[in-house]
């Protein structure tokens, strides 16, 4: 693994008036066979001889958008997979949308495999090495994530320590699973490993993410309910003391929008005031933990007015919680420069597009 990343220009030297840090970008491979060079011979056989073709898709849906699950003008010609090369990403996102720096989250949720953790772990390591060689070492405007098998926490922590040696790695990626609770002390080694390596932990849903109704009858129902699953995991983290034990840790909630935050803060605070004695290891109001440890990303951005957005910031009690995200290359990707309401103060826009990410990711 190369440790010589191309880290010019330094994003902290960018012009805040134009800089955009996109915190949710999904690179992917053309085929899972791209991982073969990074797998041991034993595991290679499952792909090149035994027919393992990739992560199973658990949800039943197709996406009835103009380009399926891909923004139509980002669909490559022929059989090329969307977002599958650095050149495509440069042209469509960095140049096409004016993104200064993009944080990669992949689309390869090894933690969603409900068994066969040895293979999942091998896949995680292979994906991490592939991401570094094919993306991070090729484009200095990209930063990456460590993908881990969460359900084997000690092994996941070792993988975090290994991959964090690369200077372009800025976070640990955890899919928003709905059958396990990340606040359970069982998972603490993952968060401890992230914290000791100055990495953010990102939560992002996938096809494995159920709603409280399981998989509803229609995609629009499932996609509308994504915030619930992320809120449930955040609640688990807060009330199981993750942020009390790791006060420097940042958790970023992706593809969940931002308008739910005031309700969520108020709800947890109200519950905590009356039921604190059940969780005495939580030493601060949940809203205080949120403001110090949790960050959210804009996409999919609810279409609200400037006035409502300013009220939202006021209700959050901080203008440092929101960061820009596009969700490139998916069907509902937002423009990173046109998604916010017109007329917001320049300093607020610059925080959302740039400064808040700098403050969130210690390794940027």
């Amino acid at each position, binding site marked *: 693994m190369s440790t010589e990343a191309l880290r010019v220009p330094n994003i902290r030297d960018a012009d805040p008036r134009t800089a955009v840090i996109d915190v949710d970008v999904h690179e992917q491979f053309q085929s899972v066979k791209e991982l073969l060079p990074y797998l041991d011979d034993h595991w290679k056989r499952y792909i090149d001889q035994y027919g393992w073709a990739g992560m199973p898709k658990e949800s039943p849906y197709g996406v009835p958008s103009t380009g399926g699950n891909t923004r139509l003008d980002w669909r490559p010609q022929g059989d090329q997979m969307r977002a599958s090369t650095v050149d495509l990403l440069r042209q469509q996102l960095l140049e096409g949308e004016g993104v200064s720096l993009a944080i990669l989250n992949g689309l390869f949720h090894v933690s969603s495999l409900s068994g066969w953790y040895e293979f999942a772990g091998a896949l995680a390591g292979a994906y991490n090495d592939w991401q570094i060689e094919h993306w991070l070492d090729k484009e200095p405007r990209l930063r990456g994530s460590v993908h881990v098998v969460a359900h084997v926490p000690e092994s996941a922590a070792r993988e975090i320590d290994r991959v964090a040696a690369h200077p372009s790695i800025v976070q640990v990626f955890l899919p928003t699973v709905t059958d396990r609770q990340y606040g359970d002390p069982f998972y603490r080694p993952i968060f401890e490993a992230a914290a000791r390596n100055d990495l953010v932990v990102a939560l992002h849903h996938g096809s494995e993410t159920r709603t409280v109704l399981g998989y509803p009858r229609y995609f629009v129902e499932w996609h509308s309910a994504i915030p619930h699953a992320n809120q449930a995991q955040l609640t688990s983290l807060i009330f199981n*003391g993750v942020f009390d034990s790791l006060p420097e840790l940042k958790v970023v909630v992706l593809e969940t929008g931002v308008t739910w935050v005031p309700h969520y803060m108020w709800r947890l605070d109200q519950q905590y*005031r*009356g*039921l*604190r004695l059940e969780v005495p*290891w939580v030493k601060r109001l949940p809203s205080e933990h949120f403001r110090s440890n949790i960050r959210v990303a804009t996409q999919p951005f609810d279409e609200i007015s400037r006035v409502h957005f300013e009220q939202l910031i006021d209700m959050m009690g901080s203008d440092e919680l929101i960061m820009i995200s596009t969700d490139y290359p998916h069907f509902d990707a937002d423009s990173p420069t046109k998604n916010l309401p017109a007329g917001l103060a320049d300093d607020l826009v610059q925080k959302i597009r740039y400064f808040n990410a700098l403050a969130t990711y210690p390794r940027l």
Partner: protein
Amino acid sequence: MTKHALFSESELAPGEFRRVDVDGIGIVVLRTQAGALCALRDVCPHQGARLSNGRLEAAVDGDDVGHYELLADRAVMRCPWHGYEFDVFTGLCVADPTERVRAYPVGVEDGVVTLER
């Protein structure tokens, strides 16, 4: 600040509390299990319930998930409505110190509980 004589000290055993009226102000006077006398305004700042309709409990602390410690030297009055906890010595809401009830100085003189307000 005026000192008010309330009732005989022997009328309040450890773990007991009672509501008194001082100049038209409702106050809950209590004795912790450890024997300390305390007094709080008898109105929860949340929605106005009488704390004297709630419970006097040992405060709970803990630093590790799943481990609880009952504190012998700290007690809380818990509101009967939503369970908010108020430190009997300071009146501060344990979960949210921005919420508080007024705490009054109390003492014993010649076997009588006194309160200053």
